[in-house]
């Protein structure tokens, strides 16, 4: 199994498509809620589509991606992680939501495992993000996400037409 998809990111087109789809699904959900649709599976599926759009937008490169964006991406992920942990701790403190603290603990444990794995084994795939030129595994992941997005959109349109 190749691990390059873990260290490489999708192309710029998946960022654009992801942002468009995420925005579209957000609008769909707002419209649904305004019209009082409380069909939970439908709302849940819309949320998943929104999330997959965001994944496409976050894990993809810029049009002219270079090492400055690597530094920016590292800072953004680090800051996001810190905000996430602080939010979880706040939720835990004020609402005593035990599950939330497990998410934070689990996330940090996974981080430490990946970090020390890379420190000790020094795998070359983590240093190859900018050098992979051929079709990457991540591209297949994003193509799959895009197909799911489009497929679900078509299903949605057909459901609306039935009403």
């Amino acid at each position, binding site marked *: 199994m190749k691990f390059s998809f873990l260290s490489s990111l999708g192309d710029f087109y998946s960022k654009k498509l992801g942002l468009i789809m995420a925005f579209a699904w957000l609008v769909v959900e707002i419209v649904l809620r305004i019209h009082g649709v409380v069909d939970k599976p439908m709302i849940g599926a819309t949320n998943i589509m929104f999330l997959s759009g965001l994944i496409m937008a976050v894990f993809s490169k810029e049009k002219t991606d*270079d090492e*400055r964006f690597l530094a920016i991406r590292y800072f953004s992920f680090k800051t996001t992680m810190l905000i996430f942990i602080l939010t979880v701790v706040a939720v835990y403190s004020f609402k005593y939501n035990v599950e939330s603290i497990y998410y934070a603990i689990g996330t940090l444990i996974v981080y430490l495992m990946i970090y020390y794995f890379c420190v000790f084994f020094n795998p070359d795939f983590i240093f190859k993000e900018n050098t992979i030129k051929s079709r990457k595994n991540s591209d297949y992941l994003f193509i799959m996400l895009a197909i799911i997005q489009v497929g679900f959109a078509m299903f949605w349109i057909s459901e609306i037409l039935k009403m």
Partner: protein
Amino acid sequence: MKNLIKVERARKSITQAELADELKVSRQTINSIELEKFIPSTVLALKIAAFFKVKIEELFILEDKDWEIL
């Protein structure tokens, strides 16, 4: 680390955007390097030096603070 990219660019009469296009990086990256906000990788530094046909140590100059522990 100081650099003389702006000087070399002026000598060649090219814009940041043109240099960025040649090096396949964004214009903001060239701007950040010129303003000494961002230190380029060895590969990019060598590419810039090769583009201007100068030695890398003539283009990028280490300062005393660069010897301090990061």
